[in-house]
């Protein structure tokens, strides 16, 4: 079910953002922080299938949009790691989440709750991959760009990477960002099968979603 929640904006006001929720007012309420940028698209189906499995295991889960992504009306270029952290903290309060499951780069913006991180990555690594994609695209067009020069521009003026319009604050903050230390990492090998976030095209694997839901459900019961 799609539901709204009040999200703080950089100007101090509040705007409505959406979340997908399997909410039955059960004791365990898991906030799911999506993967970032392209990986969010590639993992969307996997993420939602994991939520269905969690629902079946008696666990509520809520997947809020990061402002500037998915259904959000907010401009992505105005976002930063700080605005995303504030957004996830606000949705934690609104939905009374008890635990968090962050996927990949989602661990960089996760709220301070106990929980798990699937294959967490550093912000530098998230940026590196997108810089590389941009450099390769530019090279095909006969232009020579370098990571260093792009980052230097990005820190002051922002940068469009793989179609994502990132503001200067996002670039600077991601460069130094490390996954939240309060989360227990879950490795891809625990899910069986190859990583869906690597895939060139979005794909799904119900067995991997079931495995992830089971890791979380088991930990919640113990």
């Amino acid at each position, binding site marked *: 079910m799609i539901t709204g929640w009040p999200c703080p904006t950089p100007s101090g006001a509040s705007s409505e953002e959406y979340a997908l929720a399997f909410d039955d007012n059960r004791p365990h309420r898991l906030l799911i922080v999506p993967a970032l940028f*392209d990986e969010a698209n590639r993992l969307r189906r996997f993420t939602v299938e994991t939520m269905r499995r969690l629902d079946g295991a008696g666990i509520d889960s809520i997947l809020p949009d990061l402002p500037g992504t998915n259904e959000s009306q907010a401009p992505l270029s105005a976002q930063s790691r700080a605005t995303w952290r504030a957004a996830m903290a606000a949705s934690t309060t609104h939905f009374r989440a008890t635990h968090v499951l962050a996927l990949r780069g989602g661990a960089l913006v996760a709220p301070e709750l106990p929980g798990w991180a699937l294959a967490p990555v550093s912000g530098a*690594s998230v940026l*590196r*991959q*997108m810089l*590389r*994609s*941009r*450099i*390769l*695209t530019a*090279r*095909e067009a006969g232009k020579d760009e*370098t*990571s260093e020069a792009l980052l230097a521009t990005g820190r002051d003026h922002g940068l469009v990477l*793989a179609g994502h319009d990132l503001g200067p604050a996002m670039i600077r903050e991601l460069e130094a960002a490390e996954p939240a230390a309060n989360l227990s990492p879950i490795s891809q090998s625990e899910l069986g099968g*190859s*990583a869906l976030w*690597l*895939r*060139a*095209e979005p*794909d799904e694997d119900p067995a991997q979603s079931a495995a992830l839901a089971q890791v979380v459900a088991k930990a919640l019961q113990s």
Partner: protein
Amino acid sequence: MITEIDSTLRQILADVLGLAPDRVAAFDGDTGLFGHLPELDSMSVAGLLTEMEDRLGFIIDDDEVDGELLETYGSLLAFATAKQAGA
């Protein structure tokens, strides 16, 4: 004979491109990659290179990435083998 680096590289290609293991196992030195496999665009090339770095233990500089590198499976394997020997 299939070397360890060869099988790792095939596994990475299967993982990134979502190809069936038997299809990847059938790759030979002349199998075309970039421009031949529709799954392989600039975003997935970026992912492929990052995975190679993580699993094969070397760093690929931006200026080492050119059209020839990804022309065929043979050229990619030769690059990975040379990089690992120098790492």
